[in-house]
């Protein structure tokens, strides 16, 4: 018999390095061992662990007796870095945390900065409507990844193609509006970076029709699919008490029947002016969580439609606070060579107004001062409550930036969901939490 799996003896027992194609050999060797307990390491490089999540599973046969998560492989020190950059530059950092829902990171951060500045009510309505519209599009693109990869990890490949086809169309909207498909740094303290280009709203109205039809087709692929139901129903069970004590929010909490959605319960960005439903399920399992995500797509489309109506009425209104001491001076525009400063703005500061040039230089390099204090601003991200805890000492840079990342808190519940279940159900349970490791590790 050829030996694929190399083994070595440690104080904890024999350790096998499995490289694929050698499970039979490992199994046969373990079969002769006295102990039935096996510890299997899954990840951090594993296609079904959503990035670099490491799971340590203690098994008896195929049943998990203990599960632990190993995280930190994607820690990039974003919180520390923001302390060394201006408040506005912070947006560029935080957008990279949860890379599937960057606009939520930006919004929660900017709401925090605005609260510290005391200008929450001065943010123009058009800016808030654009924020809501972009966030709801982002919720769609994020849920599409959750549904597509979630299905892929359970062996269904087709939903992935369709989900990413829809997601691509949403990313095209982001590209048209902000110049970038991901990590846009589009939402800024005081408003948004630039107004919508001409024809955006009309294009979005067309897109909504497309998306609505395709979402229905996608849903048919999974809802009612007998394999899907067998892999997800009753799997990854976590009830309301478990969610509350572990601080779990988002679709996982709503799958226990709790209609907790910050957009309804503690509205921000004017969400109280929109008509939409909070989707819940009462199954407490993976099936319910995916069902919630599918139905939330339609609710997001409803909100976007209302945004379009509001945007038509607010055409030409400002998208940044009037205070020039806070508003970013550069009038960004989409030029032939990509995103840059508008030529009119360059002409003004370089050719006609020395004071405007000084102001531009000062606010871009030094930034604005933010009164001392601390705030916490939560938003409902696709994964749950995302909150920014910002501390200012009165300077031009944050004193402390901390993010209450929903993936981080929700991932804690993996052990509660999986212990006692079969090893194959771990993949379904983790997929239903939809953790983004950039959000977990920051």
């Amino acid at each position, binding site marked *: 018999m050829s030996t694929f799996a190399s083994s070595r003896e440690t104080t904890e027992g024999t350790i096998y390095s499995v490289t694929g194609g050698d499970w039979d050999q490992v199994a046969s060797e373990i079969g002769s061992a006295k102990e039935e307990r096996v510890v299997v390491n899954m990840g951090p490089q594993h296609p079904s662990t959503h990035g670099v999540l490491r799971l340590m599973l203690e098994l008896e046969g195929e049943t998990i007796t203990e599960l632990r998560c190993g995280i930190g492989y994607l820690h990039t020190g974003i919180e*520390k870095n923001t302390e060394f950059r201006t408040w506005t530059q912070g947006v560029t950092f935080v957008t990279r945390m949860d890379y599937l829902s960057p606009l939520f990171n930006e919004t929660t951060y900017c709401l925090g900065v605005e609260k510290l500045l*005391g200008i929450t009510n001065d943010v123009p309505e058009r800016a808030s409507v654009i924020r809501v519209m972009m966030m709801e599009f982002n919720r769609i693109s994020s849920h599409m990844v959750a549904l597509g990869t979630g299905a892929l990890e359970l062996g269904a490949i087709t939903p992935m193609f369709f989900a990413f086809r829809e997601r691509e169309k949403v990313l095209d909207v982001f590209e048209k509006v902000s110049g970038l498909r991901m990590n846009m740094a589009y939402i800024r303290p005081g408003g948004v970076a630039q107004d919508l280009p001409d024809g955006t709203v009309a294009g979005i109205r067309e897109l909504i029709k497309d998306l609505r039809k395709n979402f229905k087709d996608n849903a048919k692929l999974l809802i009612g699919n007998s394999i899907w139901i067998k892999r997800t129903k009753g799997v990854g069970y976590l009830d309301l008490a478990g969610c509350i004590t*572990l601080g779990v929010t988002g679709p996982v909490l709503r799958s226990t029947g709790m209609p907790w959605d910050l957009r309804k319960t503690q509205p921000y960005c004017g969400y109280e002016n929109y008509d939409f439903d909070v989707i819940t399920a009462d199954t407490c399992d993976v099936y319910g969580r995916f069902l919630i995500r599918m139905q939330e797509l339609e609710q997001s489309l409803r909100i976007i439609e209302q945004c379009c109506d509001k945007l038509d009425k607010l055409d030409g209104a400002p998208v940044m606070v009037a205070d020039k001491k806070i508003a970013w001076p550069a009038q960004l525009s989409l030029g032939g060579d990509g995103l840059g400063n508008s030529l009119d703005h360059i002409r003004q500061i370089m050719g006609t107004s020395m004071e405007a040039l000084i102001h531009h230089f000062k606010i871009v390099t030094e930034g604005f001062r933010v009164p001392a204090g601390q705030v916490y601003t939560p938003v409902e991200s696709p994964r749950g409550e995302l*909150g920014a805890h910002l501390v200012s000492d009165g300077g031009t840079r944050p*004193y402390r930036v*901390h993010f209450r990342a929903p993936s981080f808190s929700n991932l804690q519940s993996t052990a509660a969901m999986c212990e006692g279940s079969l090893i194959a159900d771990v993949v379904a349970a983790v997929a239903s939490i939809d953790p983004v490791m950039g959000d977990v590790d*920051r």
Partner: protein
Amino acid sequence: MSEQKGSFGIQGTGDTSGYGGLVRSSFSPTSAQKPYGSYFDEVTDELERAFPEFNDAIEKVVVDRGELTLHIKRQRLFDVAKTLRDTETLRFEVCLGVSGVHYPEDSQRELHAVYELLSMTHNRRMRLEVSTPESDPHIPSLVEVWAGTNWHEREAYDMFGIIFDGHPALTRILMPDDWPGHPQRKDYPLGGIAVEYVGATIPSPDNRRSYR
């Protein structure tokens, strides 16, 4: 701020503005006077009723920007937290996490732990803040009250070196297990740290190659 040297040409205070004007000062919010407004009076009154040693446990009540913060003596944190969770009129059943803050200028109170609480029952939010001296960085763990603070306390330990007494397994969570120091303290530089792997060392960016 203490002297430090980091990557990307950062020296001294870490001021990248080019003005040398980055001054770090710790701020100490003033205690609010009753009435606090909003639901804050109700919360503090109810807590006072349910927790007789209220005046002994609370250092100050801060109301700022529409948010309520209770500064608590660390010895009484556990009891206050349990009261806030269990009293029916308070019912802060969710703890959203622990955020450490380092104030090197705040003598004998250098390390702060900030807890964001949420009551879904009453749709309210509030915040607990606890301080501890750097020389004795111990705060009681709240894992028994809110199991969800488990990882958050590990993160605060990892990043700030706050030791949460009674935590079931207080180990590093984001940094490698053998990492020296606590990276988010103010005296820890940004960058400029050589990263050691087993069998190899990657020098910090400022020690690699200079393009200046």
